[in-house]
């Protein structure tokens, strides 16, 4: 019988010895090296651009030395002054800020009412065709956000901006400027794009509210209206506030719609202002604007997480089939259904059909001028920059190929990187590395894409050390795109790896498989599904992406989105519409198929 006296906790071996041992272990475990590489890459691709843009905002740029009376490269408050206090600061900053606020508030209210109402309709009532409505009303979110603005122009454009006038004007009805351009149309078109977002968030929350909470209030004698006011609305607050903040964040960074509908009337918002500053090569001002957008974006998400945390304290998640019982609309059933259909028609059918018809008519939407020239003609009279139908010539195909190639590669990188981040986090050999990867890979989520693109420009526009200037290269485009989608892929990568756990890999290790063999034969094959969704979701949203690429593409590398915006610039309405329709078609089909095939819900890929 071996009897051991109670063991004392042993004194740990001396530090140096432990370090030697630890290094020996790490040498056999590439996870550590991989983690280190990821840390360096993320620091370089995510953190460094932010530092660069911040430093550009406070350093005198070449060419400004005369005005500022300082040497280039010196620390300066010149740009701050210029943006916030100078004579042109109204034009540069305050006016765009105000406009941005107006649009953000307007769009949010619009989306909130439409999305909230529709969410209530499809989750809490017995409206006919509930299932169908729930799916159909999400479609606007699958279209590029500025699809709606192009459709709007096709209907309401007046002669103020170059190119074809819209349908009404062609009918001899002069559309006033406030209806054709500026805040009103921007709010409406953005609202139509973002209400599905609210619908999804609020719908999910409504579905989770425990019906018993309502019942008990009703039993205590509260009338229906009081129940909604005192019980349902407070319980919905987290979802509502989250929806509000996310829509505001999106609007802050959106570029296409304010560009198409705002600029003809000199209606500037922060994102288009930033774009123009960059186009005008006023790097310092652009850096200040980008910094401001970054700060607002970060604040929004921080407020959101803070509110979510506060609210979580009294969130009650429904037990069994909480929301099985539906409110009976009685005679309002069919009117309610009609309302839902109207919303669908206005937010999907009208814009898409308008675009479609506009591309087959010479005079907007006048079917007597039917023509297929804009699609197929060998030669379009009068057009200079793009003198043929979209399917002719090489432009569309080249842009499509570029989109496919660049977005595809970015998505692939993004998905693999996301999975590797998940792998390193779950293997957990170094908790601090894991924490860094978790947080930094999530950082781009806080930053509107357009500001992040501007930040990347700050870092990569000039050669720094051994890294050459990357501006205008597809390489930069791919990197930035991959990084901006990283939050989604790294989150799903972490989730997928968490679910898998470490054991399957360890079992392979015990069986004698080297690290490379484990990756190739175990980890990646098992995560095939996660990898595919990890590629497809960023791909779909990248295909529609405009605000990032508009900053980074040059004429050499057109993507579908920039091609369409370029055609708008030229005033080739029909051609621009045709290209946008192609994007919408591809992105809708892919989203639909992905949802069907992977049963993943759009809600989880709300990256768009």
């Amino acid at each position, binding site marked *: *019988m071996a009897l051991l006296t109670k063991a004392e906790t042993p004194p740990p071996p001396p530090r140096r010895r*432990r370090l030697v041992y630890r290094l020996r272990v790490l040498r056999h475990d590439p996870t550590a090296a991989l983690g280190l590489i990821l840390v360096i890459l993320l620091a370089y691709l995510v953190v460094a651009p932010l530092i660069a843009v911040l430093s550009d905002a406070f350093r005198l740029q070449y060419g400004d030395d005369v005005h500022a009376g300082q040497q280039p490269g010196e620390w300066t408050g010149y740009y701050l002054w210029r943006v916030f206090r100078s004579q042109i600061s109204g034009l540069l900053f305050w006016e765009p800020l105000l406009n941005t606020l107006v649009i953000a508030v307007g769009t949010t209210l619009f989306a909130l009412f439409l999305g909230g109402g529709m969410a209530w309709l499809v989750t809490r009532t017995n409206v006919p065709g509930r299932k169908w409505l729930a799916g159909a009303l999400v479609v606007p979110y699958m279209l590029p956000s500025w699809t709606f603005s192009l459709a709007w122009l096709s209907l309401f454009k007046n002669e103020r901006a170059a190119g074809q006038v819209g349908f009404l004007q062609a009918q001899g009805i002069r559309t006033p400027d406030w209806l054709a351009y500026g805040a009103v149309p921007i709010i409406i078109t953005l609202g139509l794009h973002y209400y599905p977002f609210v619908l999804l968030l609020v719908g999910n929350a409504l579905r989770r509210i425990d019906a018993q909470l309502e019942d008990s209030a009703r039993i205590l004698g509260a009338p229906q209206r009081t129940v909604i006011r005192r019980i349902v609305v407070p319980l919905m607050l987290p979802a509502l506030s989250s929806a509000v903040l996310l829509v505001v964040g999106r609007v802050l960074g959106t570029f296409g719609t304010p560009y198409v509908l705002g600029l003809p009337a000199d209606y500037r918002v922060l994102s288009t202002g930033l774009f123009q500053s960059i186009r005008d090569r006023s790097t310092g001002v652009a850096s200040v604007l980008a910094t401001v957008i970054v700060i607002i974006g970060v604040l929004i998400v921080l407020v959101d997480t803070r509110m979510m945390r506060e609210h979580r304290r009294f969130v009650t998640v429904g037990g069994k089939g909480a929301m099985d019982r539906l409110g009976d609309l009685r005679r309002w059933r069919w009117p309610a259904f009609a309302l839902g259909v109207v919303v669908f028609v206005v937010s999907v059918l009208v814009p898409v059909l308008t675009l479609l018809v506009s591309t087959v008519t010479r005079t907007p939407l006048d079917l007597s001028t039917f023509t297929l020239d804009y699609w197929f003609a060998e030669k379009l009279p009068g057009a200079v920059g793009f003198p043929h139908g979209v399917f002719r010539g090489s432009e569309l195909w080249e842009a499509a190929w570029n989109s496919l190639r660049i977005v595809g590669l970015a998505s692939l990188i993004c998905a693999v990187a996301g999975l590797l981040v998940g792998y390193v986090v779950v293997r957990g050999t170094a908790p601090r590395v894991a924490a860094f990867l978790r947080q930094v890979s999530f950082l781009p989520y806080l930053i509107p894409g357009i500001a992040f693109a501007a930040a990347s420009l700050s870092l990569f526009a000039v050669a720094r050390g051994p890294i050459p200037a990357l501006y205008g290269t597809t390489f930069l485009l791919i990197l930035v795109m991959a990084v901006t989608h990283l939050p989604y892929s790294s989150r799903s990568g972490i989730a997928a790896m968490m679910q898998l756990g470490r054991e399957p890999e360890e079992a392979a290790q015990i069986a004698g498989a080297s690290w490379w063999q484990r990756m190739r034969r175990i980890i990646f094959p098992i995560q095939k599904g996660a990898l595919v969704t990890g590629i497809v979701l960023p791909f779909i949203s990248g295909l529609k992406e405009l605000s990032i690429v508009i900053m980074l593409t040059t004429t050499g590398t057109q993507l579908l989105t920039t091609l369409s915006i370029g055609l708008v610039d030229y005033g080739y309405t029909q051609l621009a519409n045709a290209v946008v329709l192609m994007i919408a078609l591809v992105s809708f089909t892919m989203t639909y198929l992905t949802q069907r095939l992977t049963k993943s819900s759009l809600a989880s890929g709300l990256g768009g």
Partner: protein
Amino acid sequence: MPNITLSGIAKSYGGGDYAVKNLDLTVPDGAFMCLLGPSGCGKTTTLRMIAGLEQPTGGTIAVGDRVLDSVEQGLYVPPEKRGMGLVFQNYALWPHLSVRENVEFGLRMRKVPAPERRAKAELALQMVHVDAAMDRYPSQLSGGQQQRVALARMLAINPTVLLLDEPLSNLDARLRLEMRAELKRIHEESKATIVFVTHDQLEALTMATDVAVMNEGELQQLAPPMEMYARPANRFVAEFVGSPPMAIVEIGSTPTGLAGSLMRFVESRAGQDIAPAAVGIRPEALRLGSPPHSVWSEEATVEAVLPAGSSWTVRLRVLDTELYALSYTPVEAAAGEVLTCWTDQVHLFGADGMRIPAWDRTGVGA
């Protein structure tokens, strides 16, 4: 075949807590050792350290004279080079590979040619009776079948050290019995050294050549199963091993009631030199009926009789204390009846919780 030595092994997952504290353990060459202990006592951690999946904070692990881990000397051999077999507590089958591919994987890594690989995989699967499900995927198997595939996967590579983490926990009683016999047979045939984690003490007692009882990261006792049962080294082992558990009677400074009665018996045997803090009585050592000469005996009131087929558990009230007696002959007493109970086997533990060896030498301990 190798013996496994752990010396001064400690493991902390960070923070001040140690999952394993200063563990010295030698698994003799060809042993079938069971690691036994309550949940969370560090069994899995110990096993994973032997396999190389977890690194100790201090200490040395060696197989034969091959040092696998030594924090002090800075030596480390990665798991894939240790050539051990391990069955995980939750199987860890690869969901994307069929049963056959799962079992063949290790052989593939060893570059065994295809025909031989197939044959070996089939043999291993036959051994655990899942050869019929060869082409299915793990998700299409029951928990018990998965567990057996995990066993087959380990056996296929014919390792000389087998590590098993509760490999039979998910089987029904009959299969479990069969697999126990199968494991014992494998052990005898292969002469492999086996470390087997369980918290089922029956499993430990029936299968092991050596049992190591752990608690809170510390080794409590290492002994052959029957010896462990007969002479538990401390109160923890005494209470942990055996079912129903050993009754422990605390002896206060002035023992009264049952404690007093037992103390008089101890003193009558061993005089005043032995001062136990507690006295333990195993239920099956507590007999009913007329006592033989010079044993401890006392009147007992029957509170309940719980028959279980081949054995009878009787709850008794003896003076001020409740005791259980386990009998293998039928007990036909009604509740409330007063009987005599007696025993000549009691275990004595000192104030430090350790067994008092002097008592055993009187021949009254087990």
